[in-house]
């Protein structure tokens, strides 16, 4: 009988991410070659997550934090790499400019970095970093909703729909992270490490694989609906 503990969740997370990566890799079969570069974004995300969860399942990279909680470094490294990639993907789909994309990606990386610091340090630095991270995230949300929407207005209906869908998906799910963070031992410990790990694993898998699936589905729809392939590859190629 497998013990129901944190390792189990990390293992399941690893499996979920791995399966998600394989599933999303199917996208390379159905999507046109010129979109590989863009689409690779979401597959790289699940691959990074797979590695991170594998490390955590193996118990590698755990450090004791100031508050007594255990901080899983691979998780933050994973987030530090993957969430900006998601932001980048959304910005690309929205056809946002380089400045906007850079700002959003930078702020998202800052959000994760500040969250890590908040998790490591004890009160009151914890709250300070959490607040700073929250502000950075608010900035990301603002940029994604209001700034990127301007450029998205000029897009085709389907592409704009994909942008909104991904944006809403990311914002809604990512808004849960700070709550978990606060409830988990990294914050105030209302939720134990096992439960919070379960929840985080679930939301991670759902957010990353789900994001990838929505992106794949959306790109396929773009491909099938929009005959003007050039109009698509152009905005999608912004991340060159």
């Amino acid at each position: 009988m497998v013990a129901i503990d944190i390792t189990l969740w990390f293992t399941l997370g690893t499996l979920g991410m791995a399966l998600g990566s394989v599933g999303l890799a199917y996208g390379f079969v159905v999507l046109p070659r010129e979109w590989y570069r863009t689409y690779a974004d979401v597959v790289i995300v699940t691959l990074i997550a797979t590695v991170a969860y594998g490390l955590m399942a193996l118990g590698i990279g755990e450090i004791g934090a100031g508050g007594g909680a255990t901080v899983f470094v691979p998780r933050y490294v994973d987030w530090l790499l993957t969430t900006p990639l998601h932001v980048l993907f959304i910005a690309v789909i929205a056809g946002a400019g380089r400045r906007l994309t850079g700002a959003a990606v930078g702020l998202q990386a800052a959000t994760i970095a500040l969250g890590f610091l908040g998790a490591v340090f004890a009160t009151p630095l914890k709250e300070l970093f959490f607040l700073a991270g929250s502000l950075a995230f608010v900035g990301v949300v603002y940029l994604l909703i209001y700034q990127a929407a301007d450029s998205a207005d000029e897009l085709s209906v389907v592409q704009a729909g994909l942008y909104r869908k991904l944006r809403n998906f990311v914002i809604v799910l990512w808004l849960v992270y700070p709550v978990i963070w606060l409830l988990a031992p990294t914050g105030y410990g209302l939720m134990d490490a096992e439960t919070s790990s379960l929840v985080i694993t679930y939301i991670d898998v759902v957010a990353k694989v789900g994001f990838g699936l929505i992106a794949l589905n959306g790109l396929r729809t773009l491909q099938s609906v929009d005959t003007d392939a050039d109009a698509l590859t152009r905005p999608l190629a912004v991340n060159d």
Partner: protein
Amino acid sequence: MPRDNSGLLPAVVRERYTARLGVALAFAIVVMLAFGAVISAQASGELRDDVERDLTSQAGAQADHLDTWVSAVTGDVRTTSKLSVFASDDVDRIKPALDRMIENGNVPEDVVAVHYLDTDGMEFLTSSSDRMVGVDPAQQGAAFATDPPTFDNPDDVHVSEPFSVPIVDHPIIAVISPIEGADDRALVYMADLEARAEALGGGNDTSTVVVNEAGEYVAHPDANKILTTSGHAVGNLSAGDVAFGREGETVMGMARLSTLQWTVMTHMPADRAYALTSQINSDLLGLVLLAIINLGLIGVTVGSNTALSLRQLADRAAAMGRGDLEVDLTSERDDEIGSLYAALADMRDSLREQITEAETAREEAESARKDAESAREEAEREREEMQALSSHLETKAAEYGAVLDEVADGDLTRRVDPDSDNAAMQTVGEELNEALAALEATVADVEAFADEVARSSDTVRRNADRVSEASRQVGQSIEEIFDGASEQSERLQDIAGEMENLSASAQQVASSAQQVATTSREAAEVGETGQQAAEEAIAEMNAIEGETERTRRAINELDDDLDEIGEIVDLITQIVDQTNMLAINASIEAAHSGGGEGFAVVADEIKELAEETKDAAGDIEARIEAIQEQAGETVETMESTSERMSEGVATVTEAVESLETIVEHAEEADRGIQEIDDATEDQAHTAQEVMAMVDDLAAISQQTTREADTVASAADEQTDSIAEVSESAGELRQRADELESLLARFEVDRSGDADARAATALED
């Protein structure tokens, strides 16, 4: 905005599907949180109770256990102290008994030693433990020794406070009972508190301590803590009671022993005690978070997709609503929304078809409407034209009427303005103008002719007058001649009579001859004058005859002209009849087109005018006839006058000839008188000759008288003829005047006579 039945929701939520979904999901989350909180509270309360119950029951059980143990120890002490062997006070016998008790375990648990105590000397007389033999417990500081209990009867048992003595390495509790049958002897059981405390043990998380009434640990898992002050508030529990308390991070169940003033406390760290609660709460939180995540997922995937699809659909439907039927209505969805897209696409297609049909129908209707419009416009235009024509005809007719009125009033210079859009009217106008021009020309001719007639008549009369005067003068002259001739005759008679007296009065004769010569000369002169007058008269009469002839020709011309006028009047009458017919046709047309009350009025007007014109033409015709009659009469009169004039001329010619003869004769008489005068001298000589001559003269005189008489009567006759001519001329003049006055009411343009004649000629 159609109202729906969810009026309770604010508009912001009601109008957006995502907002509704968000609210629904948020509500679900709130419900879940609330329910989670309730579950947490319930579970926590239950678990708290469980913990409390567990700890207190555990404490109670320990207390019971201790009680049992204490009772066992005290009972054992009591019964053992009654053994006869102890009453013997024989140490040698007692010692083995004590040893056996310990060795055989005939003593309760944790009783490590049994001593036989001399209470008086406070010395262990013997003991199961060899080390303790001879030991003074008071010296060791044993509680029971330093404060010795008193026993009233052998059944009394004293349980000492826990204590520790140097000789023993663990805290001790002593139970003492007096030995029955031996004074100052007591049996002392010594129990190992440390072992006892270990026996209390407790669970893996709990630790059980016993605190006495002094607040010292009687039992503690940490042996070192035994007999130290616990710091725990023992409280005022009565014997056998249990209680639950919490001190800091520790929760505890407490139970008071029945046998001793001891309290058993089962300690447990709060986090351990409530670990399950935390776990459950944590799991609940995890569950709620997972649920929130899932609801969020549903919201952003299903909800967002649906909202996006619906919004797209709404946009496209709105685009369709705006008329853009080219919207893309393909959807990658296969669910109800996909069906909705398909249904909407079908609807759009059918709408497109229907719109195309409607468009075609509308275009047809439009073209039909345009046709109808153009027809209506044409009808309108026709009606307007009709109206314009009607009013134009009305104005024209009025103009014509006014002109004709003025023409009727006599101003024949008036012309209608024939310029008209209506060809018939223009023709009428032109014909009318031509008629008027002809009429004017005719009237002008007639006037001119009447003028001429009047002038000619005047001339005739004047000439006649002059002829009359001449005739009178001729008459006078002739009379004078007659008188002269008569006188001459008489004188000649006298001469003849006197001739005889001639010789007597030769001088007288000479003078008389002279006189006669003068008279003869005068007569010759008068005769010449008369001749001249007669010639003049003849010339005049010839002139009159010429004039009369001309007048006659003029009157004949007038007659012809009047005939022409008659024809013109007939033409006018025809035109009027045509106009009348036109007017009738116009009024029928007007009645037919239904749009011309005015037009009918105009037609009537024209009709009336035509009739008036016809009447006027009739009038003119009648007048022309009268003029013609008069002209005829005049011609007749003129002809008779002419005849008479011819006769007069003949007569006058005769008179002239007579006068010539008279003159010749008078000259001859003069010459004769001269001869007489010459011959007077020879009178005497030639008295006979004279006599003959006088006779000749007398005959000549008589002839002259006769001829003069004839001339006189011819002159008279001529005078009468002339008078008649004059009268006729006056009558003609009067007629001409009448004609003129008749024509005077017609004003004609004299300068336009040529044109009018040209027009008349053109008409011919």
